[in-house]
């Protein structure tokens, strides 16, 4: 049943992607600015400019440009960057591993620590422990990433010398950016986990389990957590797209390449094919992330499986 459900959902991605591609194309092209301004240099003639505009098809009507682009995408070709002068697919492929490394590890770190902290906060409700975790959650959701990044650098790289200040040479350079991004994520996951546990804990079947004499530990691990994880999984799934493109400021401070940085640079130069290609990739990642989340929920929750029969 899950397989049928998954295929149905997977097929839905096609029309949604097409609709998104139109939106992306329009937003990018309707922005003021012209990539050719970033390509021509002092000494080139006004005729060179006209020739370049024609070379990249920017003199064509928007609708023609869209169909040319989407036609290319259909054949798996993301086109050629105008200002960055490389195939878009190459640029994405070069930046993707850095984003996956950083985003993926930060995602794992924040999910695991967040769930544990949320559970601790719930288990220690009405004690100082809960206040402590709640304080941490508040801090994590309000501290700006770049500020935290600089603080991390000053403390762990400059003062203690444990990790490099910036770069992406080896795993040591990953620690501080992962901690920085993870910190905000932990707060979110912990908050959702705590609230979900509180909700589930109030339900009748938990009271019944207590009445039947099950140990608190057994109730927590066998019944409470599996139920409470459902909303947590939804939140986590939504963050899969964010893994790829959500680390721009942290990439900036730590001097790391990544899809987010590529997108910002290309956007600043109005390098249309790169912006469109990267945005489409991110949109796909969000859709696939949501799909994975839904499938995971279906696998965990018999009610969803039943509803799709």
């Amino acid at each position, binding site marked *: 049943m899950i397989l049928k459900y998954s295929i149905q959902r997977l097929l839905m991605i096609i029309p949604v992607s097409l609709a998104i591609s139109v939106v992306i194309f329009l937003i990018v092209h309707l922005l003021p*600015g012209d990539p050719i301004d*970033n390509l021509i240099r002092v000494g080139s003639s006004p005729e060179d400019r006209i020739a370049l505009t024609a070379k990249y098809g920017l003199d064509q009507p928007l609708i023609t440009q869209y169909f040319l682009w989407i036609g290319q995408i259909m054949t798996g070709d993301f086109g050629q960057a105008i200002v960055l*002068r490389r195939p878009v697919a190459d*640029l994405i492929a070069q930046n993707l591993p850095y984003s996956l490394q950083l985003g993926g590890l930060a995602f794992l770190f924040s999910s695991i620590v967040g769930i544990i902290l949320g559970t601790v906060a719930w288990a220690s409700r009405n004690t100082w422990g809960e206040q402590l975790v709640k304080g941490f959650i508040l801090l994590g959701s309000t501290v700006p990433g770049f500020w935290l990044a600089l603080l991390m650098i000053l403390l762990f790289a400059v003062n203690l010398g444990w990790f490099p200040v910036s770069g992406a040479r080896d795993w040591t350079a990953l620690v501080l950016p992962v901690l920085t991004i993870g910190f905000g994520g932990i707060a979110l996951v912990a908050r959702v986990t705590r609230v979900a546990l509180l909700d589930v804990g109030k339900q009748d079947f938990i009271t019944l389990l207590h009445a039947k004499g099950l140990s608190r530990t057994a109730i927590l691990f066998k019944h409470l957590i599996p139920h409470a994880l459902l909303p947590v999984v939804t939140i986590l799934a939504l963050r899969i797209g964010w893994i790829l493109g959500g680390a721009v400021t942290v990439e900036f*401070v730590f*001097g790391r390449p990544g899809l987010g940085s590529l997108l910002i640079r290309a956007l600043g130069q109005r390098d249309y094919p790169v912006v469109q290609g990267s945005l489409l990739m991110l949109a796909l990642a969000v859709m696939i992330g949501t799909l994975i989340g839904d499938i995971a929920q279906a696998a965990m929750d018999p009610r969803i499986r039943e509803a799709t029969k």
Partner: protein
Amino acid sequence: MRHLKNLRLLSSSALLSAGIFAMGFSSVAMAGKATVALPSGELGATSYDPIRSSKLNTATSLIYDRLVEQDADQSFHPHLATSWTESPDGMSWTFKLRDGVKFHDGEVFNADTIASWIPDFKDTENAYLVAAIKSVEIVDPLTVKFVMERPEPNLLYNLASTFMGVPGQKSYDSLGKDYGVSTAIGTGPFKLSSFEIGLETVVTRNDDYAWASGLSVNQGAAHLESVTFREIPDQSTAFLELKTGGIDLLLGVPTDFLSILEAEKNVGVITMAGTGISYMPINTTAAPFDDIKVRQATALAINQKSILESVYKGVGSEANHFLIDTLPAGDVKKELLVSFDSAKANTLLDEAGWAMGDGGVRMKDGKPLQVTLFTKNDSDLKRLTQVVQAQLKDVGMDAVITVFDSSTIRDEYKKNAHQLAVRNYDWNNADILEWFFSGTRVGYPNVSMWTDEKSEMLKDTAMTKSTTSAERVANFKTYHEYILSQHLFAPLYQPAQNIAFNKDTVTVPEKVRGPRFRSQTFVDIDVVK
């Protein structure tokens, strides 16, 4: 983008608190290796293909040699070309080539290289560099003759450009469009070892190198075994890397950071003349600036000395015309130089009918002298713009600042939606005048929206009708003087180039040869023994 720039500002202020964390230097330039942070304007290069790239960085100058090198005073010096002669009519140039030069892959450099290299520019974005060359004739294995389409007295400047670093032809032809990404073959003092786009480039010493230009003291192989060029977008992070020994050399330090750097006892700072100016174009088509008196008054209201002292703490120099000081076409008649004269500015505005109003803002026909002042958010220009705004206020002009990102602002110029703007450029050639004031480029880059018959004629003469270099200088000087006489802009400031290095790990020559910190100087850098 705006967010990133705000972040930069915030992070630089956070830097001040870095002082509380004391930390000694650790030596990383061990074993002849040095790490360099590229200047922010050079970040994001995607290839080391000098012919097809639209953006190259300092590392490119280490991989490739050029026929000709330029010094800090803009003079030209032999390199792969040992000498050259230009025919009196400017229709041919003959270059004698250096003997014994080899590419990193063993290919020999000779006249064949040049004959096959020049045509490679055809149909690329960089074709304009060789547009005046009709054909290349091989006179003998070490002599080439450029037969010209038209005289091009700017040829030496083009040949000294990083985009005209000479690539190995065998490698260039066989790799096609992939050339420059993982392989880049030049004759330079360093070989490309690895390149990760957006992260870092590692170059290793070319041990066979024995053909440095006369601008370098060291005529043999470089002292450094390898150089790693890192891309660090955040200046605060780059500074902390220098502080902790993560990098040895920081190119392109913003003037704001100098005081912080100078406070570090192990950081050496080199300040050299810049290659551009900051200026305020005046839209000549937008009232009240269609009146030349108002334009002149606006230019005279700018206090260059105060800008230099208050905004840049005396680092850099005053700008009084449109070109950098080292360019001979900047040597204009004294009376045309633009410098602060508040009394004259006020008189001119009075003459133009703008009488001082009660609130310190001038009025004419019941309307206040209120104008727009555009600036970019992704530059260090915002603070400068605020000072300009205050200086204009002093003569009764109420300038309202609007901030745009760099792409949007160009669209505003093209729509003729502007009056005044604060901008800067980085270019060490007089042809920048054509770029910003040509009638064929109105809107952008001709932000002054300047169209004028005499100006066009002088421009054409300077750009294409000069035969010799001296004639070109004279023609550009005339064009420059005419531009100045029409008050199309106000010069604001000439920035300096600042380089910081870790004195504990590397020694850097005191005198930097070349308009920028490039290969000529890199071969002279050594590690501290």
